[in-house]
């Protein structure tokens, strides 16, 4: 008789003796239809039993909660009612002893069931485990609430951010009032963490650049303004061209091979400062204008290559007003930020090559990148010293659409994008690097070759 699913049990399988039968066909009736029939029949039976169990579980939960409340009330109010309650100080001592003193070795925690296993470790009941977890979370929140609140403020606008701030704002005030947040602030200062990352510098004179941050861009010193840009002299190994590459996660993908290719010319000193999850939309999360200012002061860059924007299509607050992505007000505010970023770069006399965002596999993101590229191109035209370079043609197929694979110089197909259809693969970064270097040559009258 065929076993039903509910009757199957686990047992140690006994070795079977083959009877030498050699026919290939499976037994009659066994196939996909049989499997499906068995599965449906079994599932129906299981669901009926699940309904029964659910009713039992809810009933017991309610009864258990009522019972616990009765015990708790009798335990706390009973002695008080009978006038047998100990003095407050003795009560406090009892409570502290009960909750803070370690368990004696080898003795169960007041339970008839011995709780320590073979290793001697005390085991917990599941409610105690939950209490430990909640307590740990509470301790962590109390100490770290201000940091978490700043992270929540910098997160994308929406219901999740609002809910997080509702919880974190009062906790943050409590943490600051009783001084717990100072521990985290002190640790950040000791570790020298200012929210910025490591800037990679490569090139013939790279070793001469001293490490160390100059401080936050919020206290930026004034830089000499530049109305006209002096022409760039042909770089040499003794006087290399100083190039700064900045960007978001696509800038990280592109920047490594790009600075590598620049430094390989032997006449370029290239610095890479790229950070994932950043852009111009949320300076409260990462202050790119301040970061750029610090980099320009430190590296005295003559040229800046910008490759960011993928994280920017999101709502942000501008002048106290929340602006939704896709509205004319958002586009105007974003264009102003792009313009200010360009001015920050050219104010030191540096030239800017703004590399537009490439096509994306996701049609919605692709449309957003195209819209942003229009803003970048428009602002570049309005700012002297800024050249716009479109990466669209570098990463698109013959129809101008997104391409995952493109032929390299020898005609072999290579993956130019990561499997997520957004980020740039190493081969794609090498392809874009060469195109950007060619664009720099054309725009600034250079010849950057090894």
């Amino acid at each position, binding site marked *: 008789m065929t076993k039903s699913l509910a009757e199957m049990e686990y047992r140690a399988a006994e070795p079977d003796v083959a009877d030498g039968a050699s*026919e290939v066909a499976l037994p009659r009736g066994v196939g996909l239809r049989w499997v499906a029939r068995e599965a449906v029949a079994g599932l129906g039976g299981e669901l009926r039993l699940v309904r029964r169990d659910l009713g039992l579980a809810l009933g017991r939960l309610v009864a258990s909660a009522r019972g616990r409340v009765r015990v708790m009330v009798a335990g706390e109010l009973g002695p008080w009612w009978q006038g047998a309650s100990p003095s407050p100080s003795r009560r406090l001592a009892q409570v502290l002893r009960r909750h803070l003193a370690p368990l004696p070795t080898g003795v169960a925690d007041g339970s008839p069931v011995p709780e320590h296993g073979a290793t001697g470790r005390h085991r917990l009941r599941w409610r105690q485990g939950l209490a430990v977890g909640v307590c740990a979370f509470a301790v962590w929140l109390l100490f770290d609430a201000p940091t978490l609140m700043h992270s929540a403020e910098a997160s994308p606008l929406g219901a999740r951010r609002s809910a997080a701030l509702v919880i974190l704002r009062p906790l943050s005030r409590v943490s600051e009032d009783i001084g717990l947040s100072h521990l985290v602030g002190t640790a950040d200062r000791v570790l020298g963490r200012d929210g910025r990352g490591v800037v990679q510098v490569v090139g013939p004179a790279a070793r001469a650049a001293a490490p160390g941050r100059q401080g936050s861009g919020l206290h930026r010193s004034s830089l000499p303004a530049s109305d006209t840009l002096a022409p760039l002299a042909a770089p040499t190994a003794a006087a290399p061209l100083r190039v700064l590459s900045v960007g978001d996660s696509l800038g990280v993908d592109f920047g490594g091979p790009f600075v590598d290719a620049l*430094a390989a010319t032997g006449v370029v000193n290239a610095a890479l400062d790229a950070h994932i999850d950043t852009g111009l939309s949320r300076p409260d999360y990462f202050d790119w204008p301040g970061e750029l200012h610090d980099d320009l002061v430190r590296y005295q860059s003559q040229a800046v290559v910008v490759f960011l924007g993928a994280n920017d299509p999101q709502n942000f607050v501008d002048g106290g007003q929340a602006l939704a992505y896709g509205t004319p007000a958002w586009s105007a505010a974003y264009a102003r930020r792009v313009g200010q970023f360009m001015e920050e770069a050219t104010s030191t006399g540096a030239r800017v090559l703004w590399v537009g965002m490439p096509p994306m596999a996701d049609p919605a993101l692709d449309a957003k990148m195209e819209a942003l590229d229009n803003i970048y191109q428009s602002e570049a035209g309005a700012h002297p010293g800024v050249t716009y370079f479109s990466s669209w043609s570098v990463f698109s197929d013959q129809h101008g659409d997104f391409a995952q694979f493109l032929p390299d110089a020898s005609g072999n197909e290579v993956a130019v994008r990561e*499997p997520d259809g957004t980020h740039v693969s190493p081969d794609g970064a090498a392809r874009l690097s060469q195109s950007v270097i060619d664009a720099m040559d054309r725009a600034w009258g250079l010849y950057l070759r090894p």
Partner: protein
Amino acid sequence: MLFPTIDFAIFFAVAFTANWALHPYRRLWKLAMIAASYVFYSWWDWRFVVLLGAVTLVAHGGALIIDRAHQDRAHQDRARRWALAGSVATLLGLLAWFKYYGFLAVNLDNLSHSLGSGRLLPLLEVTLPVGISFFTFMAVSYLVDVYRRRIDPAPLVDVAVYLSFFPHLVAGPIVRGEELLPQIQRHRDPRRIDFSRAAWLIAAGLFKKVVVSSYVASAIVDPVFSAPRQHTALEILFAVYGYAVQIYADFSGYTDIAIGCALLLGFRFPDNFDAPYTARSLQDFWRRWHITLSRWLRDYLYIPLGGNTGSRWATARNVVITMVLGGLWHGAAWTFVAWGAIHGAGQVVGHERRRRRSEAGRAPLPDGRWRIIGQRVGTFHLVCLGWVFFRADSLRSAGVLLERLVMSWGRAPLVTPLVVMTIAGAVAAQYLPPKAIERAQFTFSRQRVLVQGAILGLTLLVVTTLGPQGVAPFIYYRF
């Protein structure tokens, strides 16, 4: 959702409560765990759950057909083999489509281009579902164990819980049916949770993944591997050591968190790492690194190929094939094939040396202190050689790194004292005596609930303060 996130903390609190509140009601518990696991998996992309469901149905259906064929004694052996082959081929076909199609198509296309022919396959990049390599291998192990009569086929609901169980779903360990299915059926005592060991695993896992791995990656590994021509030999050397520490801290940290979460739910998972950088040979390394994968490769690939029962050449061939396919499992790229080939060749050479020594009648060399140290240092460097290929963007980039490692000596500004101390400390931590760790867990278990909570809260604070902003990417989750 990734483990070290607030989302997962809230999700796990709910799943933990539901697990223990519902555990007396077996069926309800199973459905709740399936729902929780599918919600966990759909956090990346809701379409992935369709694949997980399909793999579950194929595994369950295949096991039923194999068992049914077994019961009908007139049509046993060949029918069972065909049922097994069909089910395993379907599962591996799904894995091959999602993981290897792009790689295969590009390489075939380039081969045909060099021969002057047209394109053989359309070039497509298929989205790689998270954890597909892990749950596919688990499904294959379940089918083979049913075929070998090590276990009986389980009900569909049990198989669904086994394959989708969220602690191991994304990045292992690769748990076998005979290890987890009986635990799903068995009663788990809600009064005896090994909380101190679970807390240790989760806290240590978070520290390794969020602090150690992230710091080493950003301080030296990523800058050197992304621009190898611009760094000197000492920087490349420490970047390679750093990657050895990074991948160990990242992967072992993640599986420690997985094992700790499973322990909190009352399930015991097999260990996946056992101080791998203390290994004295490559064979020993694979008994300590990603233990569940190496066991799977041994039992479901190496032994069916013949293992070491044939001639020396057959054994060597089986070792190399197993390690190369093991390398390819990690990713669809020639660098992973090279990594597997290095490990395969290294094991063959080591095995051959030992065999010749015993055939010559010479006794094994005594285990003196310096000999053990030499073996450990030598094995560590051989493993690091493999990591160069594992991490490099391409074979050419790996070649540039190795060339500059030998030729390009000069100043090394990226090799700071903190980088050196972090790498040395992480390797030295593998030599911590297990008894010291057990003692710490025992002392923690004696503390009261509030004290344990305060200790864990402060540990979490240390991890989040020392760790980077945002969530660092996890190396193994796209495998």
